[in-house]
């Protein structure tokens, strides 16, 4: 009887998980399907789910109109660069907060998080003027710095949470064995926190990839990433939903593939320390 209940509950849980998963994935699925429709089919009411003549025309038009590879390369550089830079800065910061806390550590952590509460548009003009002065407008290095600064509080917080799960005695033992601070961080702490660091890297990469305020406002031609590529297909006066969907699919495809292959690592990292 107990076995029957367990099986039944398992079936319900599985169904529920699939239903929620599909619900979350549905907008992406719909975008992908729409990208293979004609503009007329894209706006058809009632909507056509699968029974339409599949066409690659939208992809061909988007390829013809835009230099996709340039946008893609910029996205890779900006998301990748800001993530690497962020991790380099955040690992020592999180280490000191986790293992050598002061009485102000909690305040600093909260203050760091509070910077995320300010609407980005509130600092658009100061940042824009700074970028003009420093010659960083429409440059990838400028965007790497801004993306890194935006996501740094989240990286530090995530790493701090992971590091807190690691017993300080292990680091202490390494120190007693004569390990320098650099060796302690590189050869003892980092290997133990790999799942946490990996998931932080992935999450930060995804956040930087999808960021669409600064990337639209601080770029024009040379540094414009895939968010600008998508924005160029959005129009309030004219129906270009199918082309917009094709552009969106091309923009999210790399990050979807990356997420798919690293989902195990991502889940492991995000649930690290959740159950004690």
């Amino acid at each position, binding site marked *: 009887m107990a076995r029957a209940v367990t099986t039944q509950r398992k079936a319900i849980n599985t169904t529920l998980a699939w239903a929620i998963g599909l619900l979350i994935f549905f907008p992406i699925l719909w975008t992908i399907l729409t990208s293979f429709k004609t*503009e*007329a089919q894209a*706006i*058809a*009411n009632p909507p056509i789910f699968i029974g339409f003549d599949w066409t690659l025309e939208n992809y061909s038009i988007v390829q013809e*109109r835009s230099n996709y590879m340039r946008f893609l390369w910029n996205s890779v550089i900006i998301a990748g660069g800001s993530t690497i830079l962020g991790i380099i800065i955040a690992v020592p910061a999180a280490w000191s907060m986790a293992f050598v806390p002061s009485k102000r550590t909690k305040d600093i952590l909260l203050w760091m998080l509070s910077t995320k509460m300010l609407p980005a548009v509130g600092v*658009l*003009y100061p940042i*824009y*003027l700074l*970028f*003009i002065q420093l010659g960083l*407008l*429409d440059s990838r290095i400028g965007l790497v710095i801004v993306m890194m600064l935006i996501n740094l509080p989240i990286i530090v917080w995530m790493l701090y949470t992971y590091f807190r799960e690691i017993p300080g005695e292990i680091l202490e033992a390494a120190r007693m064995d004569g390990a320098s601070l650099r060796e302690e961080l590189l050869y003892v702490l980092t290997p133990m926190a790999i799942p946490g660091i990996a998931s932080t890297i992935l999450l930060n990469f995804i956040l930087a990839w999808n960021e669409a305020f600064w990337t*639209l*406002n601080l770029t*024009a*031609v040379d540094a*414009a990433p895939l968010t*600008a590529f998508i*924005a*160029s*297909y*959005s*129009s*309030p*006066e*004219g*129906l*270009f939903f199918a082309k917009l969907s094709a552009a969106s699919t091309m923009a999210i495809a790399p990050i979807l593939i990356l997420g798919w292959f690293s989902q195990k690592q991502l889940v492991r990292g995000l649930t690290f320390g959740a159950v004690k």
Partner: protein
Amino acid sequence: MHLRSALLGATALSLATVAAAQAETITIATVNNGDMIRMQGYTDTFTEQTGIEVEWVTLEENVLRQRVTTDITTKGGQFDIMTIGMYETPIWGANGWLVPLNDLSAEYDVDDILPAMRNGLSHEGTLYAAPFYGESSMVMYRTDLMEAAGLEMPEAPTWEFIREAAAAMDNPAEDINGICLRGKAGWGEGGAFITVTGNSFGARWFDENWTPQFDQPQWKEALEFYVNLMNDYGPEGYATNGFNENLSLFQQGKCGMWIDATVAASFVTNPNDSTVADSVGFALAPNKDGVEKRANWLWAWALAIPAGTQKEASAKQFIEWATSKEYIELVAANEGWANVPPGARTSLYETAEYQEVPFAAMTLDSINAADPTDPTVDPVPYVGIQFVAIPEFAGMATEVSQEFSAAYAGQQSIDEALAKAQDIATEVMEAAGY
């Protein structure tokens, strides 16, 4: 020594040749719509003729507005040409942010630009942006449904007739709405439509002393008419419908009438996208019986040069090319007269081939019927038909249109919406020192 001098001379010469051969590149910020995308496709022709390379930054209208405003106010210098509208041009021109276009070549024939467009894109008589295409608004209606209803659309209908026709064509069983109109919040969306509707009932945003006028009976009458019309014969959820939503509905045969931008005429008559392409008629935007002003607006997407660009000459060259008669002929030769950018030049409407395009005459009549300096019945201190050309307008009108949209959705009464609109406008104008 001679050899050294000769070598140096040769090097200098070759460097100069390389520099000359290296084409200058201009960057243009633009919106994503059919005519602008088409222009991008012809950029190579311009480059072949002039040697000037062109980089495009295409953005959604609201993003573009924010992006170019930031750049121009901070002198960021990211763009050599900006695509801006009739709202921004006189304000930016007055601020000295744009290069005056008062030295365009004789071949360009600046006098050929439609007077309404030229006035709307000038400040104190100086042209600051060249119109790429212009638009007004008009009634688009289903000729087959009108015929079945036993009605005939007059060339210049009144709102009363529009209501009668909407009632006759409305057919919920067939999923046909009598009329589709914008209700979406936003100064350029539903805000623009209700402002011109207000004009056609004799309402105005401000009196001659810049006092907001939402507490006047004309506004209440206009809003009540609109809400009753849409509640009775409009589509469900019209409070969130903008241009694209109504275009989609009309193209699928779900609207008897649609009053919106004249540029939509080419979309609804295109058989590739529209299921009703061969049964669309056009008429002037309506007015209230006895009110001389009609509910038609005036807008242009125009090309302007931000002050401070290092490439002013090349930018001017591009603007002269893109807004020339030759460009129109180029598009006509390759894609047909129905696809040329409309509403900018008088000569276009004198071309015999273009006169055969079904919506050409009505577009011109609608544009000519719109006067930004005299938008409504009573005198006003501002310029603009569907907007008020002051910097405070965009933010204020967006808030006001949000209140109106809430009334369309039944979340508040018309009286409440108008009272809030009056408060919003009063507060903004007082803070701005009017």
